């Protein structure tokens, strides 16, 4: 397997990136302005109480010590207690994760279902004038609409006029899955617009790149039907850069969720993170941001492995070696 040749190195670099990110997060959160003990205990506390609190959270130790302690606990799934609610951070995040996961999952589904066909159409019609210009304008508008503008616009339209769906009425998907999906429909659509357009653009470029290759001309010359060529020769090659883009899109969905959840008042991880920053809830910020980067790092690792499996050149090489 060729995969096994590069996988260890790729795993190592993922670990390095995660460790680097964790150091960065730790340093950033520790340099946040404001005294931690003062925030937790309020203005009426005395110095003795504050000192006691700092000791109980380990803030009296040296910074490297604190970092290692935090990392060690985090590796075992213990992110400490939320300073605001005194509940374990892991539980707080876990109770909000299903909402954000569903939101991002729905947006991802829309992205794949619309973005790829759109890109294939634009790519296969690239040299026929009108369609190409239309596709270019539509996809460029898509990547130019910030989700806070689009979200506000959707909230405005749906609250001003009776359009069938209500905004702001959130149902938890863990309580009632069907209604939860319906209440997340508009946020997911808003979240997906950028990703649909980005996917369409990448797919279009990839398809154009494949179409000029000689093996496509050979297929056309053999008289293979158009749909067959697209499915078997074009898509299989063109989907590799699209697959790579999926990692970026995952990160984008997590970031975009912060804003979309804020606009639509969805109680997910994103809005919780903004709340935690407002409240200077150190432990929650550390865990939340680390979670976001970890999702990206793991997603891009999985996608690299998947690309290795899908890429026909890898399997050809395998066959050639007789492995």
């Amino acid at each position, binding site marked *: 397997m060729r995969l096994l040749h590069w996988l260890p190195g790729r795993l190592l670099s993922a670990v390095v990136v995660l460790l*680097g990110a964790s150091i960065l997060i730790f340093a950033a959160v520790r340099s946040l*302005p404001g005294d931690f003990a003062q925030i937790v205990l309020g203005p009426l506390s005395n110095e003795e109480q504050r000192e006691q609190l700092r000791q109980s959270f380990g803030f009296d130790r040296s910074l490297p010590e604190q970092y290692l302690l935090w990392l060690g606990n985090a590796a075992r799934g213990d992110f400490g207690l939320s300073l605001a609610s005194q509940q374990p951070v892991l539980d707080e995040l876990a109770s909000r994760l299903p909402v954000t996961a569903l939101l991002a999952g729905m947006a991802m589904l829309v992205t794949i279902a619309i973005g790829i066909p759109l890109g294939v159409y634009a790519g296969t*019609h690239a*040299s026929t004038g009108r369609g190409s210009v239309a596709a270019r304008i539509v996809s460029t508008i898509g*990547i130019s609409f910030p989700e806070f503008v689009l979200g*506000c616009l959707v909230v405005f339209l749906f609250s001003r006029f009776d359009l069938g769906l209500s905004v702001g009425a959130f149902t938890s998907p863990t309580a009632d899955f069907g209604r939860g999906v319906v209440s997340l429909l508009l946020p997911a659509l808003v979240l997906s617009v950028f990703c649909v357009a980005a996917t369409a653009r990448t797919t279009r470029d990839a398809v154009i790149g494949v*179409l000029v290759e000689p093996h496509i001309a050979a297929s056309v010359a053999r008289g293979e039907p158009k749909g067959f060529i697209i499915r078997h020769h074009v898509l299989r090659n063109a989907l590799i850069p699209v697959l790579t883009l999926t990692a970026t899109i995952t990160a984008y969905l997590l970031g*975009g969720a912060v804003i979309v959840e804020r606009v639509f008042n969805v109680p997910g991880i994103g809005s919780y993170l903004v709340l935690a*920053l407002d409240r200077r809830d150190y432990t929650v910020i550390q865990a939340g941001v680390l979670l976001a*980067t970890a999702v990206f790092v793991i997603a891009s690792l999985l996608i690299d492995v998947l690309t290795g499996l899908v890429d026909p050149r890898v399997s050809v090489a395998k066959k050639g070696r007789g492995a």
Partner: protein
Amino acid sequence: MTAVIRVEGRRRSVLRRAWDYLASFDGLAKTAMWTLAVLFTAALLGRLFGLGGSPTAIVGPRLAPPSLAYPAGTDSLGRSLLPRLLEGVMTTLLLSAVAVLLTAVIATLCGIIAGYRGGRTGGLIMRVGDILYAFPAIVLAILVAAVVGPGYVAALCSIVLVTVPLMTRMVGQATRLVAQRDFITSAVISGVSTPVIMTRHVLRNISGTIAVQGTYALSVAILVEGGLSFLGYGVQLPGSSLGLLVQEGTLYMVKAPWLILLPGVILVLAILAINLIGDSLRDRFEPREARSLE
């Protein structure tokens, strides 16, 4: 003016050549450039000559719809929206442009070093880029804003941190492609010093990539500034930026929709224009052959 653009023999002035260069773009990109030029000029006129009045003075009734006296309506405090809009355009464009200029300098430097020299320094640069790239853009931006404190500096820093990793990577890739070419090898053999090769040979050949990536970075910059100000971590009142105006507009969305529609539309137009110019530049510097299956 006529003296400047006078044609002297076969050598034409810089201005004339710049104009010809801009004129060689396709219609869509030209429209985009005009849009940006109009937005910037209006904002500049607003700054220099107080077009539309003062952005902070309370001049009229609250939440008045657009009229002759208040061309863009008034906000919840009775301030005319037009001057605030112009100030917002200026802030957003200027802030993003300065940030992207910084990004371009940092990314070009790091990218060329990483792509041409490689080795331990190059590896380190790429690794740091990977780490920054692992943060979702807006999450990184609010983290920076929380550390630095909300305001212009926070917006500037977060735009740079968000846009540098991708641009460094692209510049690095382009540099590696150029570094393999024969004219670089022959320059090395002729004993040209490394800094000279980097600036005279590598930099000139990757300038297209820098222009394309810089343009895309500018659109990302406006997005990040908007998102950050929208969440309340970017530009602060009484200042004005397009993201901040949209955020303010959400409060009176139903009663006074122009407060959110006008800054929203301008924001989208600006990003759209920049992206279209970026696409046009990319088609120019990285031309691709297109073939259809018909």
